[in-house]
């Protein structure tokens, strides 16, 4: 069997996901052995952009027109497109501001309307807003073990399944005390597992970097936090980091209605 051809790319983001692939130091030779790497600019400038790909890994959000063009090119040549990292899967921290709010933020940072001339800025969005995404690996940044698991399955021709159960499960497997019960704003119940509950295991509440589970019950968690005495501002702030503007706005409205 020929080695699967892969490419690893970055759009707008901190490049932390690509970096964490490079951080798989003990496994890198194995990865290079299993896959034929056609493009990984962060690791080597010798990229072959003409070749078709079996799998493309893409990190970062689509935040400029150049990002969008690049993404469309990658999609065209890749059989399987995998979004890696929170930015690519959910839009990232930058997706906190969208719509009119985004325009305002943009002016504040870049000043005049045409200050950025190389490319046209767009409100940050995940890959799936523009192209078909075949598999995802969330996390900010992605972690070594989940990445190796994903890469392993892809090498065997299996499209990995996205888990749909919350961090709390893994947190209980680790026999941690519940941080929500201890009075912290922990987003474990709303957040996808896969990270191994790293933060709560270190007594740090979950801030949701693996993105929300399907049909999350954010109303109940927001109500609970309100009951525990947290302010609307504090709750909205925590939910907004990785939850995007839309969810934050709904949440704010919900909490303000409770204030009467």
């Amino acid at each position: 069997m020929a080695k699967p051809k892969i490419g690893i790319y970055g759009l707008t983001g901190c490049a932390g996901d690509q970096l964490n692939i490079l951080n798989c130091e003990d496994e890198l030779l194995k990865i290079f052995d299993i896959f034929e790497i056609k493009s990984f600019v962060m690791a080597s400038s010798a990229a072959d952009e003409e070749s078709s790909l079996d799998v493309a890994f893409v990190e970062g959000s689509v935040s400029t027109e150049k990002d969008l063009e690049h993404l469309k090119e990658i999609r065209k040549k890749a059989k399987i497109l995998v979004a890696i990292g929170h930015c690519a899967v959910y839009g990232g921290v930058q997706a906190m501001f969208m719509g009119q709010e985004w325009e305002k933020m943009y002016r504040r940072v870049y000043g005049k309307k045409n200050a950025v001339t190389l490319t046209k800025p767009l409100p940050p969005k995940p890959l799936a807003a523009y192209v078909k995404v075949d598999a995802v690996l969330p996390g900010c940044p992605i972690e070594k073990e989940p990445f190796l698991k994903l890469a392993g399955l892809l090498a065997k021709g299996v499209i990995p399944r996205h888990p749909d159960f919350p961090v709390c499960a893994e947190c209980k497997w680790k026999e941690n005390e519940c941080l929500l019960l201890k009075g912290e704003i922990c987003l474990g119940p709303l957040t996808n597992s896969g990270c191994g509950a790293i933060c709560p295991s270190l007594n740090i509440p979950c801030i949701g970097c693996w993105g929300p589970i399907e049909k999350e019950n954010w109303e109940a968690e927001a109500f609970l936090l309100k009951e525990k005495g947290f302010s609307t501002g504090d709750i909205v702030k925590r939910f907004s980091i990785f939850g995007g503007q839309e969810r934050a706005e709904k949440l704010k409205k919900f909490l303000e209605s409770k204030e009467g």
Partner: protein
Amino acid sequence: MRLFKIKRENLIPFLRGLEGFGELWGPVKKGESFVYARAKPEDFDMTALRTIIPAKKFFLPSKFTSLKFKDNRWEDDYRPRKRVIFGLHPCEIHALNIYHKFYTRLYPDPYYLRAKAATLVVGLSCIPDEHCFCYATGTSTVNEGFDLFLTDLGDRFLVWVGSPRGEDSLKLVEKFLQEASQEDIHKYVSWRKKRDASFRLKIDLDGMPEIVSFSYDSPIWEKMGKACLSCGTCTMVCPTCTCFDLEDEYDLRRDEMKRERFWYSCVFREYSMVAGGHNFREARSERLKLWYTHKLVGFMSEYGSPACTGCGRCVVSCPVGINVVSVVKALKNEETAALWVKMEVENA
């Protein structure tokens, strides 16, 4: 049944002696809670009531590799280490008996059986706190399911022997054992009276299977569903929850496939999803109803007892107060302070 006693000052050397069977595990403090951990017997906390995760973890761990596949051959190398687990209270041992029925009756689980053969269960008596309700589930005393059981009578421990393996293990600690006397039994009976009078949580499970069955269409489930976070904590901490999922992984380091087995939960949305994407229990309320019906009705008709042993773990673990006590009270139209009640008041 043989009955011995040991002096309190001999408890630690007694437990050390049992280490001849295998690794010694028992309850130790973690934050404000307890966990079963491998530790020196002097570090065991004799006041521990319920650990965060029950003793089921010794029989089927939260996550383990159930088989490996390489070069067209598969192997299963799950070999639990020999262990002595100390400090299991009657509710915990009753739960293990339920676990045992479930995993041996219809389709004996080879992984469970291996762990069972490698584990020496040493029970310990307890005094209930405000969340214990084993008197209501009929599980406050235990006659089977342990190898040894210690009752703490202050200056001495009575030692019950519950199995041939328990009997054998006593050879390791013979020098600490004395035959129990009539006076010891009298002392035990008065301890029992005192213990039985010290339950503070008042709850009555009489008629529960019928009450749950007749509440099948009650609006209460919908209300609870609005508050449930579907976090799965109740099922992870429940000593009788058995559900698991399997997932295949390719380990590129060793060039082998492995089948991972891990605890799963019926309150997760994906649990009831089938091929094609249809979900039999899309609503949180349906999933909650399933759990309570299984615990208080279904298990009863299948195995003759409810699948709740009154350990109180759901009571102290659910962030929104949905637990056996609050649900039973709600189904009997009694008042509770659970979050779903407050949410309902707010939304009215």
